[in-house]
């Protein structure tokens, strides 16, 4: 398997104010995270709010610079590439955001939004670009007569289609999608998930699919990484992570997801203990130990590293088998 993207031990720290007179503190938003994505593959990145999953996505598209670690794209180290050096790389990696309203210029016409990356990268003449935009509109299921409309004329699902068309314009090999369907109505989510799966097959795209919805992630991902307090606690094939979860946090998460099955109402679902600790003051050792049903002394002292477990996945747990 050829690695398209290799992320090696990246970390990101933020300095935050502790409030009046409290000075400042450092949050390890992302702490020593490594993974790779092969061409045409989808890696799902899940976790609860504040776990660092969106920060990872932003570092890969270089909206944020990692404090440590390396990011390689097609073998080239792009961690600290200059703005100019990034330009050819930006063609390879595109991003889709949760809220298309925030990522689409409200005054720009839809056709121009999709054409803009082609102009920026000097691709084709005016007629060729127009043809390419028309193709992209058709591909994502928008009508050609909608090209003259501003984003507010589109429904939420159509705006996300527009964002996908713009991301596709440069024929990227990787799209980082940050919660791409979570702002959409339930009946529209399936349309966008299917569209993303279709264009993946057609163009051989790889995705880093960042989301909190475990059902959607399971559906679209080949592999899944689970984050907790800035670290990956488990990573592996989707079936292994979902059906044979090895890290106690993964098990907690899977158990907590409500399912559309009324029978569960009468059975006693195991409810998770405690709350996510403040990232300002993470527990020592394994950061999950205060909530973990199987924690022992070593968990309070030593940080567990990711290692291969029986399911075939990797888990960062002293007690995983």
């Amino acid at each position, binding site marked *: 398997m050829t690695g398209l993207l290799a992320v090696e031990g990246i970390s990101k720290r933020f300095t935050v104010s502790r409030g009046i007179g409290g000075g400042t503190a450092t949050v390890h938003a992302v702490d020593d995270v490594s993974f790779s994505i092969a061409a045409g593959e989808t890696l799902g990145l899940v976790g609860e709010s504040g776990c660092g999953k969106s920060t990872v996505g932003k570092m890969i598209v270089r909206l944020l610079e990692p404090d440590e670690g390396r990011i390689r794209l097609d073998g080239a180290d792009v961690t600290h590439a200059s703005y100019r050096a990034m330009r050819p790389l930006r063609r390879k990696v595109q991003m889709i955001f949760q809220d298309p309203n925030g990522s689409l210029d409200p005054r720009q016409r839809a056709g121009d939004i999709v054409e803009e990356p082609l102009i920026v990268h000097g691709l084709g003449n005016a007629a060729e670009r127009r043809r390419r935009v028309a193709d992209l509109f058709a591909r994502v299921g928008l009508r050609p007569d909608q090209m003259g409309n501003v984003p507010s004329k589109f*429904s939420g699902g159509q705006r996300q289609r527009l964002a996908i068309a713009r991301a596709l314009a440069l024929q990227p090999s990787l799209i980082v999608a940050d919660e791409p369907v979570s702002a959409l109505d339930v009946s529209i989510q399936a349309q966008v998930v299917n569209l993303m799966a279709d264009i993946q097959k057609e163009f051989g795209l790889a995705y880093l699919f960042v989301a909190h919805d475990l059902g959607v992630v399971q559906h679209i991902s080949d592999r899944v990484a689970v984050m907790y307090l800035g670290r990956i606690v488990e990573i592996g094939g989707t079936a292994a992570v979902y059906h044979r979860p090895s890290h106690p946090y993964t098990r907690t998460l899977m158990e*907590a*997801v*409500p*399912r559309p099955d009324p029978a569960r*109402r009468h059975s006693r679902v195991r409810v998770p203990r405690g709350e996510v600790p403040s990232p300002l003051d993470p527990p020592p050792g394994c950061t999950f130990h205060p909530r973990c049903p199987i924690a022992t002394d070593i968990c309070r002292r030593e940080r567990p590293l990711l290692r291969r477990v029986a399911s075939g996945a990797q888990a960062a747990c002293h007690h995983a088998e």
Partner: protein
Amino acid sequence: MKPLLSIEGLTVELSTRDRTFEAVSDLTFGVSRNEVLALVGESGSGKSMTAMAIMRLLPEPVAEIASGRIMFDGIDLASAGEASLRGIRGNRIGLIFQEPMTSLNPSIRVGPQVAEVLRLHKGLDADAARHRVEELFEQVRIPDPRRRYDDYPHQMSGGMRQRVVIALALACDPDVLIADEPTTALDVTTQAQILETFRDLQASVGAATILITHDLAVVAETADRVAVMYAGRIVEETTTERLFAAPRHPYTHGLLGSIPHVAEAGARERLPEIEGTVPALWALPPGCAFAPRCPRAGERCATERPPLADIEPGHRAACWYPVEAAA
């Protein structure tokens, strides 16, 4: 059982600068003591507007009750005066909103906020109110309730704040509880904790409960009965078991089919889609509002609106060509 709260032909009109249209149309349903009824729908379906109408908290005059009755204990809330509503709201009818900061005052400590309600509605003195609030905090499983009493809302996590809001809603032993997306803003592990607390307390208080949500999985794990709303109307209503086992309205059927679940088997087929988009409420088709997206629609659906009628005992659906009941 006679419903404790019954909504009869409720219509809510919205007026914008350009137009007036119905956000909720001719809604009829009831909810009994010890029962959780879920109102489920997508954005614009009218579910939250219905809750606001019941509480008479509509942003008038933009939104107004145009017709219908909201009967609670012999009183029609739709026409009741502000004075009698004040005695009911927050006292006999408790409210839980999605975002706890909608209900909590950020500049007042959480304990005194709940105590205030008890002094107002129940006439408790300061000591008795404080004692009762600590009990309530314990019931909603706030750890160390005595110390937490003096926290400001911002010192608490989202999950803890939502527990305070549940305590607030339950403070006066309400007869009716209305919960509007109570766990939507929460993470999945916190959601599981809050839903458990909510279920346990609802059962012990026995309040007639309306749970408003877009999340069918939350419905499955919480509600006794479900009413599915689409474009301002109920399109299907039955018991939770029945709805999930044999949905009859094509919209419900499509919705249940299109959600990727954390399933037992990891098959990755294409998700069944519902085509098209939710229509604008001011441009609804003359017949069934779902007809333009419906795979089963016939000619009649375009011109004649199907009434919400019993298609089997205890199962109502508004459809001319309902999905066959599964065996």
